[in-house]
């Protein structure tokens, strides 16, 4: 399990005059489910394509299992890719697609078939081998792409926003399946996504990308609870930053603080909560967003700034939350949940 599957040293890539990747250092461990999270244009896909070998870096080094592969062609690297739009060969059957990599490696025909069928069974597509990709649904194509990339048992599997084209229900289902599959086969997965929830649910570790750089690397809990930069705090989860004068007044010390919405309780203004470990702030409810299972309160603080608080609809009757709009409330949270976010520059 230990040891590094991928190591990137000061990786850079520019296209013409624009810099897509501006110096990335990263170590991905063996057997890890690693996510590269970031908005579009943050360089995460370019990094993935450089690991696969489709793009060659402008500068820097890529190591796979300790070997420098920076100048190697894609077909000389022990990684397989699941493409965003699947990239299945339309002129081949599902089985031929899955067996393609094995055929190139001159695996005997009989073994090829057995392994292709087994891989299709792994992604719960047994019996679909004879069909053409065009005859499958999006979710099924997704699984074929997965089976095709996994059948050769690469050292690393690269996934480029593979769930992006699926609808919500299917996406949630595939998230669970992907994670289970990764645990089962024990291959390092490098998963590119712009969906923070997806990254949080599936990953062992996450790297948050922003403008061609990595802002933070850590476990989902670290990223979520202790964002290292204002960008991470706002990109992962709901942006809830207190800064400047408001921060000074509410928290009691200068700096920029992130408080996750679900950590904040909405109390009546009259409620007094003088427990020393809690901080409070008074304000007016500016907006109430009813989410079904929960309600989101946007509160303008008297001290300045606005905080979002998320309340499960446990006791509040779902129907009368709208009545809170415009009322005075007191927000309360545990002091340790106001996390200071280092600002640079």
């Amino acid at each position: 399990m230990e040891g590094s599957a991928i190591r990137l040293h000061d990786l850079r890539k520019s296209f013409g005059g624009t810099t897509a990747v501006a110096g990335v250092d990263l170590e991905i461990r063996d057997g890890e489910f690693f996510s590269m999270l970031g908005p579009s244009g943050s360089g995460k896909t370019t990094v993935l394509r450089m690991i696969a070998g489709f793009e060659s870096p402008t500068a820097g080094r890529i190591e796979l299992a300790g070997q420098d592969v920076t100048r190697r062609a894609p077909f000389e690297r022990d990684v397989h890719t699941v493409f965003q739009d699947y990239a299945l060969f339309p002129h081949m059957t599902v089985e031929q697609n899955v067996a393609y990599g094995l055929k190139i490696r001159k695996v005997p025909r009989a073994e090829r078939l057995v392994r292709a069928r087994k891989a299709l069974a792994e992604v719960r597509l047994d019996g679909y081998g004879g069909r053409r990709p065009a005859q499958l649904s999006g979710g099924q194509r997704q699984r074929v792409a997965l089976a095709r990339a996994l059948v050769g048992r690469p050292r690393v599997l690269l996934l480029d926003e593979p769930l992006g084209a699926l609808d919500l229900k299917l996406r949630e289902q595939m998230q669970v399946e992907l994670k289970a599959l990764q645990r089962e086969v024990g291959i390092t997965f490098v998963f590119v996504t712009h969906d923070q929830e997806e990254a949080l649910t599936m990953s062992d570790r996450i790297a948050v990308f922003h403008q061609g750089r990595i802002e933070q690397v850590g476990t989902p809990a670290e990223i979520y609870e202790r964002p290292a930069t204002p960008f991470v705090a706002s990109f992962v989860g709901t942006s809830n930053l207190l800064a400047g004068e408001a921060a000074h007044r509410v928290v009691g010390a200068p700096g920029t603080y992130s408080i996750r919405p679900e950590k904040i309780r909405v109390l009546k203004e009259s409620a007094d909560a003088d427990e020393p470990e809690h901080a409070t702030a008074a304000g007016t409810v500016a907006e109430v967003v009813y989410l079904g299972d929960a309600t989101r309160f946007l509160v303008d603080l008297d001290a300045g700034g606005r905080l979002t608080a998320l309340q499960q609809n446990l006791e509040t009757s779902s129907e009368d939350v709208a009545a809170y709009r415009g009322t005075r409330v007191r927000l309360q949270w545990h002091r340790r949940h106001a996390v200071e976010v280092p600002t640079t520059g």
Partner: protein
Amino acid sequence: MTLVEAQPAGPAAPAGAVRRLAGALHRRPRLQLTLLLAAPLLWLAVLYLGSLTVLFVSAFWTTDSFTSEVVKVWSTDNFHELFTTPVYRQVVLRSIGVALAVTVLCVVIAFPVAFYTARVARPKWRPLLVVAILTPLWASYLVKVYAWRLILSEGGPADWLLKPLGLSGPGYGLPATVLTLTYLWLPYMILPVHTALEQLPDNLLDASADLGARPGRTFRSVVVPMVLPAVAAGSIFTFSLSLGDYITVQIVGGKTQLIGNLVYSNFELNLPMAAALGTVPVVVIVVYLLAMRRTGALSSL
């Protein structure tokens, strides 16, 4: 009073009629379709299929050998003669051979050209290159064939170019015919192959490399099979255009005869025989189309 009332009705009336007609047609989509297609269908049925039928029917008539009058008596003599006379058989086979040779040459030349124009050349040059490939189609067929006659003439540019190598040009004859026809129909092959290569998704090539395939392997296993329907589509043009040609062969073919020449020479004296000869390429092309349908070429036309 009356004027005031009439005014809004005046311009509204024709618009109302058109509107009512449009409404009626909208409610009866079949009637709309019938009206829309009536003229082209009539054209197709009468002029196109009609003349084809006349061709087939007259192929079964005969000619009085003294008066050259057409005798409208049902007989299969023409076809019998066609299949038993060695000369006819030879010409038919030669024509098919020429059409196949032209098609193969077109594929061999078109593939690298189209690969360059669709995938290698800078994107901003691609439309220009396509235009350059299509430009010869604007020039007259005859001019181009006569140009080749000049090129291939004795002591002409072909001879002159090949002389340093100790060779001479092919002169007029069968090779010259194949060469000229290949030149004439090449754009019809390049264009579909170019389009297919251009539409080939990059990520399929990436995926193939990702799974361990070297470029040569990717070319054989992904590019060629995906472009094959386009090649077949192009071959329908090159094959049928070559099979029906009789002018090029007259100009650069020397004494070579193809089906078209036999049709032409029988035209005056023995129209039924010409018709019988004329059905041969039609049948060959129908067979060819049926064969091409299996490759999916017809759906990519």
